């Protein structure tokens, strides 16, 4: 702060340049982050950069003022923790923590900028700013697509950094005006000229190295290895290097005519062992447990046995139910020639989406049954905009809940299905070149199927669907809908075989509240995820005699672990108990890990089968809720503003429901806060007067300290270079017991230990007591007002 006095203009220039640098660095980092994750709304980094600039300038003026420097730094440091706060907020609230490295990156960049701008120590500030520059540089080099704005920002950063360094250096070494020795002045002048050049050089070299290493697509050791002569070859292989027709991405590229793609040449058409959804279920979850007809069996005599010779018939009627009790998934023996199963479905588009293939609404405690027959006429309209592509639109009212549209291209490969695998909230779809809406019917509530046939292998589908906004869901009133819809009763049925009392007890113990709201749903799901553990290899081998109450009872109250269908089933049971109409849905989960670089598609096979829950909203829309731990939901990510709004919304609701308690509590806290000094004062006095059995010296010093504390509380603290006697008698002109206390105080504080006091112990004690009683806070505040 002394530097301001040396050259305010120079200081101002340095601060402005540093602020612009920090803003540039943050801009670049944010860009890199957003391009990598495509998550935040696109303008937020701009706001952050501008905000940083404004903060920096505000900070400059405040430091120039010379007041509150520390407080400002503290405040800004606190503000920098907001990404961390957000991180924990999201984690605790939605049960899923956002990627940690993003948060840390943001925290680091904020901290660096703030430290760089506000730290008084020049060396630390310099290091911080250089770090900010380097982080910016690394971020810049990791951006794939370059925009002119980004390049301009980077150019600005590159230009500004050396300029700022020179200024900083000039600021740290002001021209010495009173230097008498010429030689020294010359020496310092030459070092002034030399040092920034050296630093700028270092910075440039460091930056070039970083840039080269990070930006280069080859590893550094490869680059270095090329310097050494060898017999040739770098040993690099590229798995994406392909050749030939119908290979690589071309093999499954979605096109209109299935016959023209690579499938016609493949062995898929030679033997059509395409698997249905329920075959896939069996592959993934094991076969359903077949109920024994007889409790006990006895072998017949040899004469009664007639050898059949045929293979026993398999039960192909797995049909449209899903049993929770399933047999262990037997690992098939694989031969060397065996090849991995081809995908059932290939998908392009937004990952972490669920493609629904079937849904279940009725549950008897052990098995799920497919929905009631849907007799809706499939009312599809054909979008006329594009004559080449025939889009079928579902006639559904536009809702406030929709916030973003996502599109998928789906290619049905090995799956035998008549149901259109579509994301939730389907808006429009396209099936190859089909133009007749009569071909489609309902497979369930808001589920499309093709009539009387299956989709042939290689059919390409395109879907456009809506994502729901989390903020709008929070604002939704679950009670004030238009009343139960036609389908409502089908999805609200209770389950006779489930012990309702224990489910209710469980819900009570989870404390999710009684008000129906989206918050309650989220709470319930997160409690459920904490309650049970995901175990994909749970072997459901036990039969009903071992576990009399059923799988779901065991999941909730017994083992408390199980695969995703048990999570989903439990969630349906609990949600229906709370009064939400909901159903169990199954289909594919587009796992980002299933992305095949070779084919440029997500290749989904039976391992991607998943079960989840869909809740019917009062707006007659379905919303996906995934109770299985580790799966993200499908809601559209909120901006910071939306998250703040949700906070505000619930805070307001909480405030209005508890206003009396809040009023009383804040009254108490206010009183305690305003009277905190008096309370502390009384406590210390009580201790000093009533309880203290100290030796006289200690007693006097403690008394004195407490009175000094009172003085500083009353705004009349003793200056550091002022002695007690001078302050009390001279500045404050205290009277009363002071005259006898001060000599005692000087004796206690400053005399050697062997010197005895003039007064006896009890007299000392009485002087202390009188001082504590008379020189109290009220006395001092009166004194202060008199002095004013």
């Amino acid at each position: 702060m002394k530097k301001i006095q040396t050259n305010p203009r120079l200081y101002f220039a340095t601060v402005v340049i540093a602020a612009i640098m920090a803003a540039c660095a943050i801009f670049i980092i944010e860009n890199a982050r957003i391009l990598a994750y495509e998550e935040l709304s696109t303008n937020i980094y701009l706001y952050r950069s501008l905000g940083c600039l404004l903060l920096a300038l505000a900070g400059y003026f405040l430091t120039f003022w010379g007041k509150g420097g520390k407080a400002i730094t503290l405040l800004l440091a606190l503000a920098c923790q907001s990404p961390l706060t957000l991180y924990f907020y999201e984690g605790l609230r939605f049960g899923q923590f956002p990627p940690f490295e993003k948060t840390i990156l943001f925290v680091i960049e904020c901290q660096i900028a703030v430290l760089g701008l506000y730290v008084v120590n020049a060396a630390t500030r310099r290091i911080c700013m250089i770090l900010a520059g380097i982080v910016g540089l690394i971020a810049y080099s990791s951006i794939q697509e370059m925009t002119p704005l980004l390049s301009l920002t980077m150019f600005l950063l590159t230009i500004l950094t050396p300029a700022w360094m020179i200024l900083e250096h000039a600021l740290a070494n002001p021209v010495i005006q009173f230097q008498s020795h010429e030689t020294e002045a010359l020496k310092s002048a030459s070092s002034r000229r030399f040092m920034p050049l050296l630093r700028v050089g270092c910075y440039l070299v460091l930056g070039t190295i970083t840039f080269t290493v990070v930006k280069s697509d080859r590893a550094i050791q490869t680059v270095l290895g090329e310097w050494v002569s060898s017999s040739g070859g770098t040993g690099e292989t590229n798995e994406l290097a392909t050749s030939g027709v119908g290979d690589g991405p071309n093999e499954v590229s979605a096109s209109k005519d299935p016959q023209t793609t690579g499938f016609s040449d493949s062995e898929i058409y030679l033997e059509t062992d395409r698997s249905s959804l329920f075959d896939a279920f069996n592959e993934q979850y094991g076969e359903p447990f077949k109920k024994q007809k007889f409790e006990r069996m006895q072998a017949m005599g040899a004469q009664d046995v007639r050898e059949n010779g045929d293979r026993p018939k398999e039960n192909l009627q797995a049909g449209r139910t899903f049993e929770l009790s399933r047999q262990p998934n037997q690992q098939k023996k694989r031969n060397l020639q065996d090849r991995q199963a081809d995908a059932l479905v290939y998908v392009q588009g937004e990952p972490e989406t669920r493609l629904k293939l079937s849904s279940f609404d009725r549950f008897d405690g052990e098995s799920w049954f497919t929905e009631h027959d849907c007799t809706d006429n499939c009312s599809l309209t054909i979008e006329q905009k594009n004559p080449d592509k025939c889009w079928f639109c579902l006639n559904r009212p536009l809702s406030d809940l929709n916030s973003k549209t996502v599109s998928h291209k789906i290619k049905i490969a090995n799956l035998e299905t008549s149901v259109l695998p579509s994301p939730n909230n389907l808006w429009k779809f396209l099936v190859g070149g089909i133009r007749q809406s009569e071909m489609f019917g309902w497979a369930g509530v808001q589920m499309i199927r093709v009539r009387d046939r299956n989709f042939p292998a290689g059919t390409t589908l395109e879907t456009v669907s809506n994502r729901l906004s989390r903020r709008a869901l929070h604002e939704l009133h679950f009670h004030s809908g238009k009343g139960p819809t036609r389908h409502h009763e089908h999805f609200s049925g209770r389950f006779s075989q489930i012990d309702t009392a224990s489910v209710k007890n469980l819900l009570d113990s989870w404390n999710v509240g009684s008000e129906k709201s989206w918050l309650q749903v989220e709470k319930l799901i997160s409690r459920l995820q904490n309650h049970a553990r995901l175990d994909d290899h749970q072997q459901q081998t036990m039969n009903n005699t071992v576990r009399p109450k059923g799988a779901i009872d065991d999941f909730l109250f017994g083992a408390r672990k199980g695969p995703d269908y048990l999570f989903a089933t439990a969630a349906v049971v609990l949600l229906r108990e709370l009064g939400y109409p909901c159903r169990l849905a199954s289909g594919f989960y587009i796992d980002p890990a299933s992305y095949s670089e070779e084919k440029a598609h997500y290749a989904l096979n039976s391992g991607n089968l998943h079960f989840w829950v869909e809740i019917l909203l009062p707006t007659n829309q379905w919303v996906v809720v995934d109770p299985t731990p580790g799966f993200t939901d499908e809601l559209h990510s909120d901006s910071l503003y939306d998250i703040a709004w949700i906070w505000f919304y619930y805070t307001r609701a909480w405030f209005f429901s508890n206003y009396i308690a809040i009023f009383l509590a804040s009254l108490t806290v206010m009183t305690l806060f305003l009277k905190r000094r008096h309370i502390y004062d009384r406590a210390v006095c009580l201790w000093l007067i009533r309880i203290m059995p100290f030796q006289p010296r200690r007693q006097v010093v403690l008394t004195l300290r407490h009175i000094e504390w009172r003085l500083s509380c009353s705004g009349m603290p003793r200056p550091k270079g002022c002695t007690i006697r001078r302050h009390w008698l001279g500045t404050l002109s205290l009277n009363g017991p002071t005259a006898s206390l001060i000599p005692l105080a000087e004796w206690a504080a400053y005399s050697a230990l062997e010197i005895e006091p003039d007064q006896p112990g009890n007299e000392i004690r009485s002087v202390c007591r009188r001082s504590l009683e008379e020189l109290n806070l009220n006395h001092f505040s009166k004194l202060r007002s008199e002095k004013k």
Partner: protein
Amino acid sequence: MSIDLSGCLRQKLHDLEAALNRVILGKPELVTSTLICLLARGHILLEDLPGLGKTTLAKALAAALGGQFARIQCTPDLLPSDVTGFQVFDQNRREFQFLPGPVFSDILLADEINRTSPRTQSALLEAMAERQVTIDNQARHLSESFFVIATQNPVDQHGTYPLPEAQLDRFAMKLSLGYPDRDSESRLLSEAVGHARQEREAIEPVMSLNDLQQLQREASSVSVSDTVRSELMDLVAAVRGNRRFANGLSPRAVLMWQRLAQARAFLNDRKFVIPDDPRAVATGLLRLRISGHGDVDSVINALLDEIPVSPLQTPSRLVS
């Protein structure tokens, strides 16, 4: 020593203070400073305008102590032998006889000391520091309670020889009297009515020189705790780090600082030194050593206010 004797001596000390206050009206701080210097065996440099009572103070002090008083009026042509004394040849006895100079006294007033040449000023050096003079290779001891009050005139700088640093370092304090306040001055005027001579009332001796030496010994035995001493060292370090004190602060001055602090504590009937003591005597002590002109006192006070008073330590820490 017995308590009675000590109490009796203290009474004499207070009598001395009262006597001086009767002569120098309205300047109790100056009287206190003078007594502190006297107890610490340090010499005083009085810098003030003529006619403010410098000589009066010195004479009164000598009279009250019952000691021998001598005065040197310093002029440019004053010679060292005029100060120390010299040998004359006695024709009758046919041998050199020593004629003692003014330094062979108990209280010496060196008036307008900056008017004389550095040569003569230096003649006082040995006398002030070691209480002896060497004449013709023969060391002659001065009085045990030898005490110098030197004066100098701050305004009339023409034809003066500023005191060298070596000389200044031998003084303990630089004091100035200043004008008396209105009441004191009117009292002075009223007392002067009816007195033909300018002389004020004669002062009876209140103590002997032996008593003074006894008091000086007792003052030097006042205890200084570690806390206060470390604070004193902080003050010393701050003074040495300040660029106004280009000539530094000699260990002799630091020693004198502690003696002055002890003397102040003794004068205030205390057996130990408190942080007030070094700070109170610091102004007089540091005025001698500061370089440059201007408002010297405010610089010193600002310097003192910078250094924190040693904090109140809990006795448990004191015990350990």
